[in-house]
């Protein structure tokens, strides 16, 4: 295993994916182990496509994806074993209860049944789902469904958690729970990469932020580094983000 590659949790190089138009256009990205990384960008910038490729849900047209040194395109099953994916639309089964769902997910990831049972119980308690542990998910609110999906992502102890807009539609309490759960995992050494339109969340939670536009990474770094790149200090991430994207659009229109 390449030592330089192994030091990074995620390494993406020259990633390309075209649908009707290029969605990801030669993207390079590197996320360190134990890092909380936020990927920002306007609608249609290629954030979700990038994360779906990293999560093994889409095949790229070209490029490399390496997760903890594992070639995620050639050895996708091996890479998925240490990865979890959470989308904005909770992917759960209406006719299963949270307990059954977690048992199913743990089984898919090949976990020991006893370990899985303990972890499931702890997660359900932590996410305040214990009173509903044996109810079918069909009557759950969006927030409860998202918490069940998050529990499914955490139950198998992934080393890399990929989240696509995980806070969409959540109330303040549920959002706080999800954020706390993610920060706790990062403190335990887990790597998190997340897209969000709530810039305040990225500002407060992420150690590094990547800004993507038209399938390319246009800026990357800590909030301070991004401020420097955009040439504005003491401004919010929202201002920095809008400034970077506008700059990119102007450069594109002027053919630079």
């Amino acid at each position, binding site marked *: 295993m390449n030592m330089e590659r192994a030091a990074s949790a995620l390494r993406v190089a020259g990633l390309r994916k075209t649908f009707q138009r290029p969605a990801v256009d030669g993207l390079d990205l590197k996320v360190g182990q134990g890092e909380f990384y936020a990927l920002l960008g306007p609608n249609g910038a290629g954030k979700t496509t990038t994360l779906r490729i990293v*999560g*093994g*849900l889409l095949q790229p047209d070209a490029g490399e994806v390496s997760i903890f040194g594992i070639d995620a395109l050639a050895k*996708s*099953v*091996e890479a*998925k*074993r240490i*990865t*979890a*994916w959470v*989308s904005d639309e909770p*992917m*759960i*089964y*209406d*006719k*299963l*209860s949270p*307990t*059954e769902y977690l*048992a*199913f*997910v*743990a*089984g*898919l*990831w*090949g976990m020991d*049944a006893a370990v*899985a*049972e303990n972890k499931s119980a702890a997660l359900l308690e932590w996410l305040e789902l214990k*009173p*509903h542990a*044996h*109810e*079918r998910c*069909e*009557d759950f609110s969006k927030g409860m469904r998202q918490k069940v999906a998050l529990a*499914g992502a955490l139950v198998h102890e992934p080393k890399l958690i990929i989240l696509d807009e995980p806070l969409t539609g959540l109330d303040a309490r549920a959002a706080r729970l999800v954020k706390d759960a993610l920060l706790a995992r990062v403190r335990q050494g887990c790597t998190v990469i997340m897209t969000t339109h709530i810039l305040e969340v990225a500002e407060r939670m992420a150690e590094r932020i990547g800004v993507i536009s038209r399938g390319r990474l246009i800026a990357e770094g800590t909030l301070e580094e991004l401020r420097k790149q955009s040439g504005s200090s003491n401004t919010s991430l929202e201002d920095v983000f809008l400034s970077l994207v506008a700059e990119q659009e102007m450069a594109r229109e002027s053919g630079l």
Partner: protein
Amino acid sequence: MTAPGSWLWLARHEGLLAWRDLRYLMTGGGRWRGRNVVIVSVMLAIGLHMIAFGVVARYAGMTLEVGTRGFTSITGSLLLIFFLLLSQALEQVTRLFYGRGDLDLFRSSPAPLRRLFAIRVVAIGVATTIMALVVALPAIDVLSFLGGIRWFTALGVAVAAAATTAGIALVLASMLFDALGPKRTRFAAQVASAIVGSAFIIGVQAVAIQSIGTLSPRALFDSDLVLSRMPPPDSALWIPARAVLGSGWDLAITVTVAAIVLVVPMVLLSGRLGGYAIATASVSHGGNRRAWSTRLFRTASSRQLLQRKEWVLLLRDPWLASQTLMQLLYLIPAGLLLWRFYGDSRGTLIVLAPVLTMAAGQLGGGLAWLAVSGEDAPDLIASAPISPMHNLSAKVEAVLIAVFAIFSPFLIGILSHSWTMALIVAVSILVAAFSSALVQIWFRSQARRRYFRRRQTSSRIATFAEAFSSVAWASAAALAANHSWYAIAPAIVAVLVLAGTWTIRPR
């Protein structure tokens, strides 16, 4: 007249939605190509008229003097169509309460909900009438061409039948709702619809098998057993039959009764329909119960997990289970035939081989759609550490095991009679189900499970491929059960159908 919220305005809105639905039905969601639709419609019309010619041409000379035998045949045919229409109408009326769609919008608007429901009941009547005409018009055309325009009175009977079914369906659905409440009515109506749609033909076939040893309803209607129990030709029971044969007076009575049966419930019940819809919106499926399947999931390999998940989801969704299994009702006559001729010569049982194979093909297709296209958590499965092939093969196995389990009582019955025939039927059942599953895999298109009924319109090619391969395997099974080497021919046709389908699959 067309002020927003008025009768006409709402009717126009409903008409637009119905037209869009019809377009979807005809194009499968693809682009609307007027020329193609006209060509397909003309070909369909020609095909239906040719079938109608073969079936009804010999009855063109019938007059009002046909007597009890003729009236019995006509009334039997009318009842068959009537129950099929009633089944469809009952399902459509139930959908009025449970289809969330735009009801929340209407409920939050000042437009009177009663008016909307009244228009939607009329729309159901119109839709049922169109269906009745699709079935009846080719036969009426043929009869009128050969026997004179007096046969056009049958059109009035078809319209009356459709209106009657819409009215009865409204009453039945309302009774079910009052008796069972919003939580259970949908399932009960689904089962009632399946039973109503199939009960008459199954009942007739069952009586035919028991009394005269054949599956043919016509033979039963012509038998002395039935004719000796029928009333004389001037009985009121034959009013619809006399209307079909050109009696204007009887047609007037039929249409009047139908109008009363439709309008009275519509006036009396349309005010309550809004309440039903509100009640369905507040249904809770909850209840804290310790789930038995948790242990099933904890002690399984990933392959077994995927299979068990499919079975658990199906078992927990009575509506879906009834949708999937209702076609098995049509196996009842086959089961009766097996029971009636158990121990008789092999020849009598040969008819079972194609019937079971055909049913297995259709059931396999439905289950495969649920497992593959109807996957509720596709991202979870795609992100799990299992290969796509492992996932698909586990799901196909789940389908085949379910099909085999459902058909095993028949196989055990046949096995007691002839092990070679049981083997032939078992193989043909599995091959037909597997073929349908392959078609569903090649044409998979992610959809919510609740859109199960629309699966047949989402891809015309997949629907026809599934049907053709099932028919071809059923033919092969029939010939193989007869120990004929000609079975190879339809088997090759089935393989060619599958090969052709594979080449034009979406990539």
